[in-house]
């Protein structure tokens, strides 16, 4: 098992980026992993087709929280369709353990060990699944 508790991951866990509420959010979506009790709320501020702000609240293991922190850093400023393809990229990466071609996954690379840990894939993807749900809700509006 390659070590998943890397310094990068621990840094995001200890000092989460964009944790908290947003002043003026347009959408806020809850995600839950009932099998391990992890919970997360994503807050988004939309500027047309662009995610101008994103923050999270929640509780859970280091992997789910660090992954949420990384998500906020990564998605901020992207368009909705960029977000969508980023989610696909991340999901593919977490399943296969290999970095996809194209744009770097940056800090998220530190989660590569999760691919070998079927039980923890859900922790790493919780924030991303929640983001997907957010996209669905945006689309409905």
């Amino acid at each position, binding site marked *: *098992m390659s070590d998943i508790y890397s310094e990068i991951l621990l840094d995001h866990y200890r000092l989460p980026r964009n944790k908290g509420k947003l002043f003026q959010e347009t959408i806020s979506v809850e995600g839950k992993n*009932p*099998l391990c009790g992890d919970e997360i709320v994503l807050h988004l501020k939309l500027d047309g087709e662009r995610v101008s702000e994103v923050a999270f609240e929640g509780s859970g293991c280091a992997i789910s929280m660090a992954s949420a922190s990384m998500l906020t850093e990564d998605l901020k400023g992207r368009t909705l369709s960029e977000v969508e393809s980023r989610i696909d990229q991340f999901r593919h990466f977490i399943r296969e353990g290999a970095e996809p071609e194209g744009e770097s996954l940056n800090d998220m690379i530190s989660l590569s060990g999760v691919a*070998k*840990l*079927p*039980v*923890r894939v859900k922790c790493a993807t919780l924030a991303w699944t929640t983001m997907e749900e957010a996209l669905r809700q945006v689309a409905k509006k």
Partner: protein
Amino acid sequence: MLERDVRRDFPILNIKVNGKPLVYLDSAASSQKPNDVLQSYCRFCESRYANVHRGIHTLGEAATGDYEAARRTVAEFINAPELEGVIFTRGTTESINLVARSFGHKFIKHGQSIVLTPMEHHANLVPWQLVAKAVGAELRFIPLKEDGTLDISEARKLIDHTTALVSVTHVSNVLGTINPVGELVQLAHKVGAKILVDGAQSVPHMPVSLRELNPDFYAFSGHKMLGPTGIGVLYGRPEILADMDPFLTGGEMIREVYLDHATWNELPYKFEAGTPAIAEAIGLAEAVRYLTSIGMERIAQLDHLLTSQALNKLSREPDTKVYGPRTQHGAVVSFNVKGIHPHDLAGLLDREGIAIRAGHHCCQPLMRWLDVQATARASFYLYNVPEDVDALIEGLKVARKVLA
């Protein structure tokens, strides 16, 4: 028969029975296990064992990984259209009971019909009797033609707008009949009925592609295909499985549990309550790899060759009646010798080291159709050789002499 001497892979073939080398002709009841399967079973238990899906530790992740890889291996083997439709059960019997309980009781309604055949194994008959009784449905049986094949023109009439489910065996474990499952799937789907296929005698012996056959449910057992006991498979179409109620409940199949209610996990876990047969699933995957390494086409050819030899030679024996069709035959041959009870045939052959099966083969209604109490049955698999057929015929001659 095969390029590779597969017999060396099966340690049990070296034993002596009553001083004679074992001639095992009872694989339709259960197959023997190759070294590879036993070794992979032990290797797993000795180096990667833990409970699955829950442990956040290296062994837990290893075991979960192996168990889910076994599911993929099995899914590929039967060319299943979706991985999440592949459910591990104890065997064919549990697989069919799962469908009877979770699909049958919920979706088959009063006045509808369930279409079966008279050649079904009790495992594909009794569960439907109970469903029919509970919901007030009618059981219909596609009649057999004299040679033991289905009368498809009758099937066309019986499968009608009242039909909720057709449930048929792919290959008869008594007659050897290979049923036209593709055609039955079409007949069922044309009237909006679902179809379950009992693959207990087909998956071990021939290439089976669910993408091509397109059934709604397909059931089979590990122990008849070189795998361990205690493991089997139900394939179900995910859309249907999703609407079905759970079968067994408890750990693993739940999502959220409160004191007074619970919600269910996603497929296939919704139908795998409790600790599954973990090491057995891994053994089954190894059996699948073993079969694949030889090739299901080759296995089907070999089975066919041995079965044809047996059919031919048995038909030439005096006072011997052979049941079932002469062509398109699975790897079993049922027969009777006049004046000798099949139990005695089996008992006397055993003195010669030859293991055949005698009885009703869990097909009592079919015995009545054949108008016998029981039959003797020889069944073949990839470790059998033409000499085994000769031994059988020789053994019969001895038996006739003893009981004459």
